[in-house]
């Protein structure tokens, strides 16, 4: 009997160890332990900047440029279909960027949820500022999503055409696409709140002016010239042009800078995709991605334009002639996102389009030209016609912001404004501005019964 008792005692003693089942992951921290203090929330916000900086490190810009006319067809890989405007829902590069941007939006929504939830004690200043910063970043993310995955604002007269999914909460349910009008409304609301609540000065993070500058860009993209103009006027009273021609070499201390992503070293480089794509490591070898013939020849047509010196040509005169740019030959750069040169050319165009002050428009574009040439020799005369000024502004936009992702969206914006029926007056590398393939296809993971995919093709 004793033997039996001993064994039974052992059985019972073993069995009481339910705690053995409590296993917490190693090397990863569960949410309950990770997010407990205001500092944790601040770190979450920091990580949102970090992630945004990594997605805007030339990658968002590259996808925009691939659709347009500044680049040559890539050699291979999933960027080729972007160039060909034949992305399908299996394109992992396209899906990757899409998922990454929404991942930041999740972080921002989670941050706002935690602040709103009120369980973690936070001070009043933090609550207002962090929420406003989150809204600024969330607006920026949605703005680029709707530009890349939707047809542009103005594609339909009421903008009821599908945009992207609006994510304004941590909800994990599938959602349908909102219309472009709804997406822009959402962006404007976020930016209005950000503008109100962001501090005037906020170090290297988003401040009030950043919200205004982004808002100006959004309004401009909507062809809403009046509102864009107001914001440009306000900001250009504070920010002036830098003398440096390559804005990547002087970012954070530039008088132009309104908002930039910060790089602190080679291992913390927020222009990595720019460098990976366009940096010319060995002067005799082209960069992995090459510029288009049209950009090269337009940019180098006038050698007096000092910006032409940035361009290089390989195998000149042969069938394998290729083109590169030296702007990104460095180890790391901070990444200017919102700055005064944009505002100058934006204001100039808005003035012309709204029949505003032509003289101011000319002076704005001349400021850019004069900087590019180092003298006033090529400045527009004050009697230049509005049409010619507009042509010059748009030319300067291409030469001033090469590879920064503006060109394709410029052409779409202009198409929506000046060629609403898609007659072909405005084209993007041989295709109508509103052809289907110019909106990227959504990744297959969105495939639910409530989600409408983009039509494909049509940009041949």
């Amino acid at each position: 009997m004793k033997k039996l008792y001993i064994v039974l005692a052992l059985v019972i003693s073993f069995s009481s160890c339910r705690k053995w089942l409590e296993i917490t992951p190693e090397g990863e921290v569960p949410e309950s332990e990770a997010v407990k203090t205001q500092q944790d929330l601040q770190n979450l916000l920091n990580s949102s900047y970090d992630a945004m900086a990594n997605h805007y490190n030339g990658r968002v810009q590259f996808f925009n440029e691939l659709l347009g006319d500044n680049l040559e067809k890539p050699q291979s890989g999933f960027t080729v279909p972007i160039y060909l405007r034949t992305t399908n829902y299996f394109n992992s590069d396209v899906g990757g960027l899409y998922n990454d941007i929404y991942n930041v939006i999740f972080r921002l929504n989670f941050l706002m949820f935690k602040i709103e939830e009120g369980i973690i004690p936070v001070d009043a200043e933090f609550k207002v500022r962090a929420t406003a910063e989150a809204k600024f970043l969330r607006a920026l993310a949605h703005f680029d999503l709707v530009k890349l995955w939707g047809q542009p604002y103005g594609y339909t007269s009421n903008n009821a055409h599908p945009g992207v999914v609006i994510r304004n909460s941590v909800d994990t349910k599938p959602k349908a696409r909102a219309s472009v009008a709804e997406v822009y409304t959402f962006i404007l609301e976020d930016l209005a709140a950000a503008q109100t609540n962001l501090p005037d000065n906020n170090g290297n993070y988003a401040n009030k002016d950043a919200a205004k500058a982004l808002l100006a860009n959004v309004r401009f993209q909507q062809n809403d010239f009046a509102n864009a103009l107001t914001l440009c006027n306000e900001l250009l009273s504070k920010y002036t042009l830098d003398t440096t021609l390559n804005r990547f070499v002087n970012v954070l201390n530039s008088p132009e800078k309104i908002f930039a992503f910060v790089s602190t070293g080679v291992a913390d480089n927020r222009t990595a995709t720019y460098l990976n794509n366009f940096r010319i490591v060995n002067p005799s070898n082209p960069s992995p991605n090459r510029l288009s013939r049209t950009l090269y020849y337009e940019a180098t047509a006038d050698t007096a334009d000092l910006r032409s010196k940035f361009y290089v040509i390989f195998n000149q005169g042969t069938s394998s002639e290729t083109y590169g740019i030296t702007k990104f030959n460095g180890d790391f750069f901070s990444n200017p996102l919102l700055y005064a040169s944009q505002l100058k050319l934006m204001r100039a165009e808005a003035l012309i389009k709204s029949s505003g002050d032509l003289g101011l428009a000319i002076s704005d574009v001349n400021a850019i030209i004069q900087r590019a040439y180092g003298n006033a020799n090529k400045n527009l005369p004050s009697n230049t016609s509005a049409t010619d000024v507009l042509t010059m502004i748009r030319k300067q936009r291409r030469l001033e912001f090469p590879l920064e992702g503006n060109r394709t969206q410029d052409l779409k914006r202009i198409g929506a404004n000046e060629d609403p029926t898609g007659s072909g007056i405005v084209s993007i590398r041989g295709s109508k501005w509103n052809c289907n393939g110019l909106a990227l296809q959504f990744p297959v993971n969105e495939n639910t019964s409530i989600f409408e995919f983009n039509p494909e093709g049509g940009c041949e």
Partner: protein
Amino acid sequence: MNKRILLLLLLAIIGNLGYAQSVKGLVKDEKNEPVIGATVQVEGTGFGTVTDALGAFELRKLKPGNYRLRFSSIGLASVVKEITLGTTEVVLNISLKEDRRQMDELVVVGYGVQRKREITGAISKIGGKELNDLPVPSFEAALQGKAPGVQVTVGSGLAGSASIVRIRGISSISAGGDPLYVVDGIPITQDLFITGNSGGMNNNPLASINPDDIESVEVLKDAAANAIYGSRGANGVILITTKRGKGKGWKFTALTKAGVSLPTAKPKMLNNRQWLQLNQEAWENDGNSGMAPLPGGITYEQALNNNTNWVDETIQTGAKYGINLSANHGGEKLNTLLNFSYDNNGSYLKGNSYERYSGRVNLDFSPTKWMKIGVNSSLSAGINNRVNAAWSGGLGAAMSTALPIYPTRNADGTWYRSGSNPVRDMNNLKWKTIEGRSINGLNISVTPRKDIVLQAQASYDYMNVNDDQWRSSEITGNNNAGDASRGTTQVKNFNYYVTATYLKTIKENHNFQVLVGNEFQRANTKRSSADSTNVPGLFSQNEAELNEARKLTQPGTNWAFLSYFTRATYNYKQRYFVQAVFRTDASSRFGANYRWASFPSLSGSWVVSEEKFMKMNRTFSFLKLRAGWGKSGNAGIPDNARFATYSPATNNITYNGQPTLFPYKLENQNIRWETSNNYDVAVEAGFFKDRLTAELNFYRRVTTDVLMYLTIPGSIGFANYWDNVGGILNEGVEFSFKSRNIVAKNFQWTTNFNVARNYNEITSLGVYSEDAVSGGTNDTRIVKGSPVGTNYLIRWSHVDPNTGLPVYLDINGNQTSVYDNKNRTAVGQILPLAIGGMTNTFRYKNWDMSVLIIYSLGSNIYESSQKRQSSLITDWNMDERVYDRWQNPGDNAKYPRLTRDYRTYNLPDEWSNTTLWLKDGSYARLRNLTIGYNLSKSQCKKMHLASARVSAIATNLFTLTNYDGLDPEIGRDSEGGSAGDRNSSRNLGSQNITYLTPPQEKTFSVQINIEF
């Protein structure tokens, strides 16, 4: 002892007054093991008893006189003893010999053994002999074709390759689909993904098990059988029992073998002139003129001179050899088994072999009558001499990127580097994966009372895998001795169980047995890596450099498992059997809300042939009906799946110099067990004194809460999410028979046949679409109403004879030139409809021959790599099938006109899939042919041997199939390592999807077994 027992004893003594002395003794079997529950009958009287857990019996109340005592037990031949009872006690020691009727063999059932007759569930037993004679990459491959409903797909021709084993179909999508492997009661470390996938291969933890250690393998297939393993039984259980010491005195066996390995099929790649011609044709088809540019910096002159046959450069005739030495001792108190083996299993891939050193000690010690101590301990080293294969290079490169116009070396003798060169890669890479493995168990069984058996087992399964690689400066480009790296994975798997069994017989006819138990298991996995430059070879040979190397420790993972279980069996007169099993399990992988789950089972059987009305039946020697129901579960998901986890504070990622914190994944604390409800009915029958035995099984398994690693809308912010979604149905029938066709003195012929038909269907997917879980890049998907692993493709109609361009079918079946993913549809399945095998064994005097044919019918093969080998010219070589291409208007060709631009076919990229590459995967193959000669007793005696045997073995001699690729048996190793979808890719895309997968091996070998 308490008073009540004393009182009972007293009563018993008083009750005995007036009677003679008792008859008592022990009943044992040939192995000197006690026979529990043997019937002891006093013929002609109503007296009788049953032996207890020690095999002891005692008969009292008999008057003095002469008696005939009959000792009988199922599976053992009855013995009759005549005794004369007087005034002294009679002590009898009875030894019962085995009665080899098949229905009465002992079967391991999990925490115990049962006789086949008693079993109420579906269990297939395979003897060790059948397993260890086949030269296979790993023991599980030898199960192929032997057990009905057990589908074994041997991975590939790679040494040490793992097989895909699926029992009665598959009921999981993202959770594991592999059965549970239990070695001597120890659920061993079996995770194929533990070291990830490299070089086109996963490390196979089963390969280090020595097949010569195995006494038998039992496959538990239905819920009645595997419910005792509860939540881990859903995919079936494979119980492996190792050999133990038996008999009397010492016995030694030695085995030695040698053989060769060849591929079952050789790819027929184009030679240089063929490739140049077709490349030029494509160039001109694309509207170009002049000579097509050549890749890899090769001029036309060089291209015409170079004609490298890369296939021949990467394959060889592999050598296989090994020895196994075994010592077996049976004694009064101690039984010993010692086994040592060395095996070198070379494959036909140059430089590839799996070497195994293994040793085993199994001891059974009985210090007293009521106690038994068992020890089983194995120590092995599996050394996999690795090569790149499939997508990773080697033969895979020879079938793809290595063009015949490329040389292995430049004219100056240096390696050719400007294009793919698998020979250069192979010669500049050293790669060994060394797995050290030790599985140890200590089992103590105590019989405190005649009717109670207590058992406790503790075990420790240790695995350490070092994946060592070295690359020369030729590859790294660094000017030094080379770079070495090591990835280490260490798994410590601890397990104990305790059980108590109570036996009770009431009035001889009512037999009860109740088992209760508790089990706990915990496994810890640690991973680390080391790398260093300027090392002259592998770290394993350069300890000093290893000590200095840069080391990185990765986070480990842990899981734990706690269970309580009980099994109660009852039979009436060995005729009606009922079994109830209840197991409740808790897994650390689930959150507090859903951690515990219960898995009951109820089953019964009726041995009809024991009924009086059947006793006289001359046709049936045995007839049994059985039926069962039960629940089983699956928790085969990553250890940390349920947690929302965040980057650690020390993530070293900053923004603007400030620390960051970010989520890794979404939380799901409500993730829970995947549950299957199983229903089974079966008939087992023996005819004509068991000359023919047959078994027919029907089953239906309904799985709900299927664990899926879902691809969720990217806009949620994460790509994936673990959830319980949807349902799967498996329904099937299995039939097997064993027939002793000819039983003459000098000639015997036996046939074993089995066939299984499984119907598999995904019955629900919740709100999700086909793409919510995918089997990797090869377009197998989950489709409601179709089986797991459905080929979901755009249909290829034909090649337009006028243009040579593809014609696809849209979703409505109309012809179109447009390739649109919306036109994908369910067109095939990787799971076969029917599988089975047939073994014929012939014996003529001292000769014997065994022929195993296996077959698999009704599956499809997706030959994913052919899309780059037969029309679209990329950077790959093509195979000779490309000649069936369109060339001129009017041609009716299988493949479209050649092009170098995928857009010619309206494809979005060069990786696009269509049904053009979907093939019929049915096959039948001569899996094994063995011819053996057993030396006669007199011959053996002359040589002082107990027995000796010489055999010649051939495997995969020929295959019948319509498949036009290499080999129709494909079990590709899986993608993913740390990713959560690793099981999805194994369940949905490993089997029957080939991507440059090395074909199976064909082997010829000779084996000598001697016993002395």
